[in-house]
């Protein structure tokens, strides 16, 4: 437990992703199984149960600490686990502490009525930092800035493997991951996952360039709408003894619990690639509608019926248990059409094919498609391309619609991270409502290093206030902000939220009072 606590402590205070990866790799090297596997699970968020409930923690502390002093402390510290870690009054250190796996096993086997007593014992033998680690671990609330994606990258680097191998394995191996870690150490063969439902790393597209458009030849390309939903992979095997179905995000996170309506009626043995959208029958709803369903681990029946999801399928990696990834797209498409005809399901819709018989027609098509705000642009896929995970060159292209732009005024600035740390590089900008500026979004990118230096300098010379790490600046600098869409939002005072905002141009020349109004922005909301 000491080593795990120390690792969390270091990760918490380390900001660079590289340094974090190094710390985790060091930990994996010097920590035995199964401890290190439990640590990986804790960081990746793959532990399947809470060791104890938050309420248990609150009850334990309220029996030991004056509630008024606890309340005042909590109010200052801002987090229950840390407040409890500091206020726990008893300390009888034990050395060494029980190992991480002993702790995990203890909580997984202890009876409900003994959980409190066990937790109290552990807290008493630990330092505040160790208590914090235990409380965060036990309530599965680690927030140490390591994403599930980056832990996979760390594991890949640790074992000298491609991240795609880890992604493929990931949902077929389980904590404490002995088999995977031993394989990464080079001491065992790769875990066998033949029959498991698991993620297949996806094929990604490049932004299209003018030359490719100029050389467009009819028949070479499959043209489709670029839908404004989220890319998902549906993996299903109901023909084996223990049927499994899963919906994965494009980075391999299992998002099945959020979309039970998508999975319930499916059967067969297949892996489909497509766009998840809110769909009312054949009608596609906006991204904003889909957003109501994202990150909801237990969606209510009401939410599901108000925002039902469907999948627009555009590719198949496996059909009827047969892998198709080596076959060309035109073949996969043909098989997919057949399969869908035979296995009709009202949640599955095939992505429609569009046609253009010349470069001119293609350009016109793009223009027409983009008038529909629910469509982000076009996809062009080479019909003879096999399904290659990653982002192979020259196979798939996305041709996004031109971004929307608005002139906004910089209001606040914050220092960046990594190579930008100590430069003011994160900007909050606003639009006018009468004589008042209301923040409409934040942008971190879109400028060159040279411009970054100038912006940083400008912030330093024009700072008028400080809120923790955030500097308020004189409302004088206009930036042209590009974004993909604008949605109504209850979370922001301005009532709008921008999608993918980035700084397009810095308008050193433009007076702030000539920036756009909130009303202009609201007029761009898609309906």
């Amino acid at each position: 437990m000491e080593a795990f606590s120390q690792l969390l402590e270091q990760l918490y205070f380390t900001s660079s992703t590289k340094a974090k990866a190094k710390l985790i790799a060091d930990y994996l090297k010097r920590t035995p199984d199964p401890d290190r596997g439990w640590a990986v699970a804790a960081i990746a968020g793959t532990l399947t149960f809470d060791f104890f409930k938050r309420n248990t923690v609150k009850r334990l502390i309220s029996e030991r600490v004056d509630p008024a002093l606890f309340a005042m402390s909590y109010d200052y510290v801002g987090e229950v686990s840390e407040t409890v870690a500091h206020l726990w009054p008893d300390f009888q250190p034990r050395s060494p502490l029980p190992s991480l796996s002993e702790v995990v096993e203890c909580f997984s086997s202890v009876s409900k009525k003994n959980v409190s007593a066990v937790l109290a014992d552990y807290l008493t033998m630990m330092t505040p930092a160790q208590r914090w680690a235990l409380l965060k671990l036990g309530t599965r609330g680690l927030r140490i800035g390591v994403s599930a994606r980056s832990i996979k990258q760390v594991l890949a680097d640790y074992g000298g493997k491609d991240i795609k191998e880890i992604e493929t394995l990931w949902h077929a191996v389980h904590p404490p991951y002995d088999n995977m870690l031993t394989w990464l150490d080079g001491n065992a063969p790769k875990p066998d996952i033949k029959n498991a439902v698991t993620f297949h790393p996806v094929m990604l597209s490049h932004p299209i360039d003018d030359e490719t458009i100029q050389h467009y030849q009819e028949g070479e390309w499959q043209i489709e709408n670029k839908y404004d939903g989220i890319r998902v992979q549906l993996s299903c095997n109901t023909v084996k003894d223990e049927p499994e179905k899963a919906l994965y995000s494009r980075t391999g996170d299992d998002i099945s619990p959020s979309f039970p309506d998508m999975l319930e009626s499916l059967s067969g043995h297949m892996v489909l690639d497509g766009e998840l959208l809110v769909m009312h029958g054949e009608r596609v709803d906006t991204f904003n509608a889909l957003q109501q369903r994202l990150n909801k681990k237990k969606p209510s029946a009401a939410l599901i019926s108000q925002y039902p999801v469907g999948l627009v399928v555009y590719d198949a990696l496996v059909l009827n248990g047969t892998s198709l990834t080596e076959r060309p797209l035109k073949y996969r498409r043909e098989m997919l059409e057949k399969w869908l005809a035979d296995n009709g399901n009202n949640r599955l819709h095939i992505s429609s094919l569009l046609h253009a018989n010349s470069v001119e027609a293609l350009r016109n098509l793009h223009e027409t498609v983009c008038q529909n705000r629910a469509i982000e642009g076009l996809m062009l896929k080479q019909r003879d391309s096999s399904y290659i995970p990653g982002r192979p060159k020259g196979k798939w292209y996305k041709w996004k619609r031109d971004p929307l732009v608005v002139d906004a005024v910089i209001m606040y600035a914050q220092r960046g991270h990594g190579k930008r740390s100590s430069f003011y590089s994160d900007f909050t900008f606003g639009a006018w409502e009468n004589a008042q500026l209301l923040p409409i979004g934040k942008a971190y990118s879109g400028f060159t290093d040279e411009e970054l230096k100038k912006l940083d300098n400008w912030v330093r010379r024009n700072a008028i206030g400080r809120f923790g790490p955030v500097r308020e600046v004189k409302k004088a600098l206009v930036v042209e902000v590009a974004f993909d869409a604008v949605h109504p939002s209850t979370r922001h005072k301005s009532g709008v939220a921008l999608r993918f905002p980035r700084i397009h141009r810095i308008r050193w020349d433009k007076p702030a009072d000539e920036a756009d109004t909130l009303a202009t922005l609201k007029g761009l909301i898609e309906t």
Partner: protein
Amino acid sequence: MHPSTWLKTDDIGLFCEPGGFYIDPMSPVSTALVTHGHADHARAGHDSVYTSAETLAIMRTRYGEDMSPHQYTVEMDIPLHFNDVRVTFYPAGHILGSSQILIEHAGYRVVVSGDYKRRHDPTCPPFKVIPCDIFITEATFGLPVFKHPPIEDEIEKLLQSLRVFPNSCHLVGAYALGKCQRVIIALREAGYHQPIYLHGAQLKLCELYQSFGIDLGKLIPVSEIADKTALSGNIVIAPPSALADRWSRSLPNVRTVMTSGWMQIRARAKQRSAELPLIISDHCDWPELLQTINEVNPKEVWVTHGREDALMYQAEKMGYKARALSLVGYDEDTQGES
């Protein structure tokens, strides 16, 4: 007459009416008694200043020889008289020259403790318990979550980091007055005898400490190092404000260390972008605040700057009358000094 009728706060500071003096005033006044040299207590421009020899030296270093036309050195333990008010200075254990001030008037004894701590500090004599009717205490760390670990443990973390990251320049944020010197001494006591490199803002006060006979070992200004890569694996001490500033960009492979009592709270440490937060404070932690109130055993506790609510609540629970005394200028966000 109860002191609440003759000892009052206004927008300048704490004013003793019958004595005609302020304690730690924020703007120029005719007579100022100063507890210690931190900028939120000691300001320039008063007509007369009464304080310890060390604090006068600190004020002259910071504000110049002419910081005040009349500068009076106060000896510890020796009473002074302002009209019919008797005033005596006692050590506070906070930083070099820091004092508490006992005010005796109309049959009452009031102790203004200024900032103080109870831990050992080789740069100043320890806090002295002065019996009194009213004890005015700070509450910078007036919450039970604040328990400062021994400075030796914190310094060991820094030394360990130097072993683990032998190529990193360890940039330590420490307030120029008090904290910086205490960190240096603790490093020396832990057996670290390499030269320690200083940001320009730390230089003068370190020299001043040395002139009072406090040994800080070999100190080198960063500005004298032409090739900054030579600083990898070494310790550089700078004011907290310089940590994330452009100044630090010239240093090689920086690892950011921050020394402050606030570092106990993760979010505060994170805000300071500290990669290695060290809990080193020149104030009392919560148990020491309670210990002090117990030992001084006054009739009333008046609580100033910091988290007064919790300390007042606790003092009342311990059977003391407690009230908040709001003083100007003592902003909790003068974090560096804590």
